[in-house]
């Protein structure tokens, strides 16, 4: 198996895709958004309960490939309990990581487990899978609605 493939489907990704965290509805959700990838049918509904300036709870539902599921799982884990500003910063860092060149260094310190998704950079067709959950988060925090990854610039 190619190194790139092993990197893409590393242990943590497979594990999160098979047992995603926070794949559930959120009681008392006050922010929600839907994300779709029209070209492959991936679809995610994201719910958040924001209390003050904090993400008090977050969960997702929907269907998608291993990458998009693992990304949603990791994303929800990463933003849970964070302030909105911190969540936004993470969005930016994640976005920068997946759109960087495949051999660019990745800051584990800033991204933590999210760094496991750096493997998509070698698979341009899959970057959208990794970023769907994040775009949906962005939409939910920006006021909700629907997003579609098609022709997103990454």
């Amino acid at each position, binding site marked *: *198996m*190619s190194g*790139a*493939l092993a990197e*893409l*489907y590393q242990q943590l990704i*497979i594990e999160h895709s*098979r047992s995603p965290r926070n794949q559930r509805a959120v009681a008392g959700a006050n922010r929600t958004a839907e994300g779709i990838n029209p*070209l*492959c*049918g*991936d*679809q995610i509904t994201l719910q958040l309960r924001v209390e003050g300036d904090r993400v008090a709870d977050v969960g997702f539902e929907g*269907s*998608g*490939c*291993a*990458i998009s*599921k693992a990304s949603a799982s990791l994303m929800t884990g990463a933003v849970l309990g964070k302030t909105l500003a911190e969540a936004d910063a993470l969005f930016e860092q994640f976005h920068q990581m997946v759109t960087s060149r495949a051999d660019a260094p990745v800051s584990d310190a800033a991204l933590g487990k999210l760094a496991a998704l750096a493997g998509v950079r070698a*698979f341009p*067709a*899959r970057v959208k*899978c990794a970023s769907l959950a994040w775009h949906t988060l962005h939409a939910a925090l920006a006021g909700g609605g629907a997003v579609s990854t098609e022709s997103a610039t990454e």
Partner: protein
Amino acid sequence: MLDATRVREDFPILATGSDGRRLIYLDNAATTQKPRRVIDAVRQYYESSNANVHRGAYALAVRATELYEAARERVAGFVGAWGPESVVFTRGTTEAINLVATSWGRAHVRAGDSVVVTAMDHHSNLIPWQLLCREREATLRMVGVTPEGAIDQDDLRSALARGPRLVAFPFVSNALGTINPAAELVRMAHEVGAAVLIDGAQAAPHLPVDLQALDCDFFAFSGHKMLGPMGSGGLVAKPALLDAMPPYQGGGEMIAQVWDDRATWNRIPHKFEAGTPNVAAAVGLMAAMDYLDGLGRGAVAAHESALARGAIDRLGELDGVRVFGPRGDRSGVVSFVFGGIHPHDLATIVDQDGVCIRAGHHCAQPLMRRLGVPATARASFYVYNDVSDIDVLIGALRKAAALFRVSV
């Protein structure tokens, strides 16, 4: 079976690479690769005959026009059409269907009328009818599909009972591989006075087609799915229908006389070809038809069908594979899901072994919803594929299973 090793030699992109690997292209339902003959025909056209057609008094323009009209005649012969005037060149199937939905549809479909499509139609044979029916306040009736992947005849009969204006269906399903009983469906629709459009995108490349025998009213196809250049394809229709239809796009070539505020139209098929046509594409398509006839169209159909059945058998050796569509007679399209691994992941993984398969909804979201899956993996075979390609595919799928720790 065709000698695919021999056939592959005609396709530059399929040559073995410097790393000893070759491209195992199994996405033929999306688009096909091009034989050298087609690539050369396009090149030669630009190197020796390129000009705008129909309006030129000089020899070069005459040559371009003759090539273009020869291609039209060749298409008519290839699909058993009523004559060259029944062939309107379009960019492909989608444009051809939009032409019918807009020109014929807006002239014939009124409030309260119905139009029938099937749950196995490609979005290109669905959205144009949705748009028409919405505009006209007509009803779009979608006929169901049986668990075996056939058009549900009972449901069709109930849809026909309402006396629809038009019935549209795919000759061959791009998502299931089903070969529909087209002649029988046409007969049933005509009995209730409906016009019939056959989406031939997956038929023209793969089966002998005889439109006069089928007796359908409209037939749409794409050249790029039958070894021809991108941008080639057409609508083939009964001349009397074309004659009576209003134009689709307006512009050069399609007019007879033009005044400031009105115009009269050119003869068919020119009435429907506004603007400079893609002569190079038509010339390349002609070469593609020659190539396919050289292989023998019965042989092509048998080759694909045998590969599809072979692939289904081999997939059956893996635990946790579900193959969609009919088991018996079918085209070279094999849709499946495997071991709970998302088709997208499968496609990425097998690509590492040089295998190109498609993952997704195959432009058939209503069908996916009925199948109860968000997406399938799809291997679709053509003249340059053989059983060794299936071997590599199966091996690559086993690797995917190992990666995802799925037991097979």
